[in-house]
């Protein structure tokens, strides 16, 4: 999560931190009806114990500048998982492309749990 995506503008360099990409992805994912919340990974749970909140969304930028995002999700009971996953992938892709102009390679979804709303 320490990487920054850099681009050159007329005035200088613009760098977008991975946390920003993760935040955009998180907001876009939770916008979708049927998504209960973003799941938590082991790392984020450990940090939470120490009182620090970190995103469980993994962002990876390869050498060519393509972004891969891995989103753990908790989905509401009764929803169609593939349908919700597709919507999340589409919305996250649109949001990232719109807000960051980055090239998205993969948006991988891991459904971690199901909860009744």
């Amino acid at each position, binding site marked *: 999560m320490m990487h920054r995506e850099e681009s050159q503008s007329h005035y200088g360099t613009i760098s977008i931190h991975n946390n920003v990409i993760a935040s955009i992805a998180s907001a876009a994912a939770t916008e979708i009806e049927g998504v209960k919340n973003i799941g938590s990974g082991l790392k984020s749970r450990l940090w939470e114990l120490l009182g620090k909140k970190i995103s469980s969304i993994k962002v990876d930028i390869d050498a060519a500048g393509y972004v891969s995002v891995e989103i753990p999700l908790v989905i509401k009971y009764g929803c*169609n998982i*593939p349908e919700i996953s597709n919507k999340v*992938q589409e919305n996250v892709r649109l949001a990232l492309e719109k807000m960051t102009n980055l090239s998205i390679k993969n948006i991988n*979804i*891991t459904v971690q749990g*199901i909860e009744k709303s």
Partner: protein
Amino acid sequence: MRIFTVLGIIFYASILILIGAALIVSSFNILQPQDINQLFVYLQNSLNSRIIVGLSGLLLILVSISFARLILGGYQRQKTIAFTTSSGEVTIALNVVEDLIKQLSSVIPEIKELRPDVIADKKGIKVELNVVLKSEANLPELTARLQDITKAKIQEVLGLEEEIIIKIHITKIIAKEEKEKKRKDIDKNESAIPFGGYGRV
């Protein structure tokens, strides 16, 4: 697959037993270091015995690798169901399917408890349901209904067209008499509290 697992477990158990027995024997001074040394000298002197020892070593390594792969492979297989879409991969943890099935106990009133175990492999999704029933119901009818509902729910929520095999084990049936007896026992215990009738006004 189970036969290989059992064979592997027996193999490792026998090796550990042999090591344990050798340690016990050496602690009683029955086996001397010279005896072990002689055995190794004998094994190294003859070409045939050296080949046998080498092949045994190779076999042990192969058995260990295949056993480890069997266990780890099985573990990985049991963790998730995955499919790919145009935007990337979607992975569904199997405990999601288990949670989903657990929620079904509220749909069928005869079910007291539902403990699902979900395994996914190349053949499809295997669901084992351990069921505790509230009362004596028509078991064939109830289990068929449970199988249908479970299958339909998994297909509806996961949207997958893979084969779903559902096995049901009825582990317990709580009879009405038993429930009433329990309730009476609780009532008895409550009334038996000394000075239970004296309350503060």
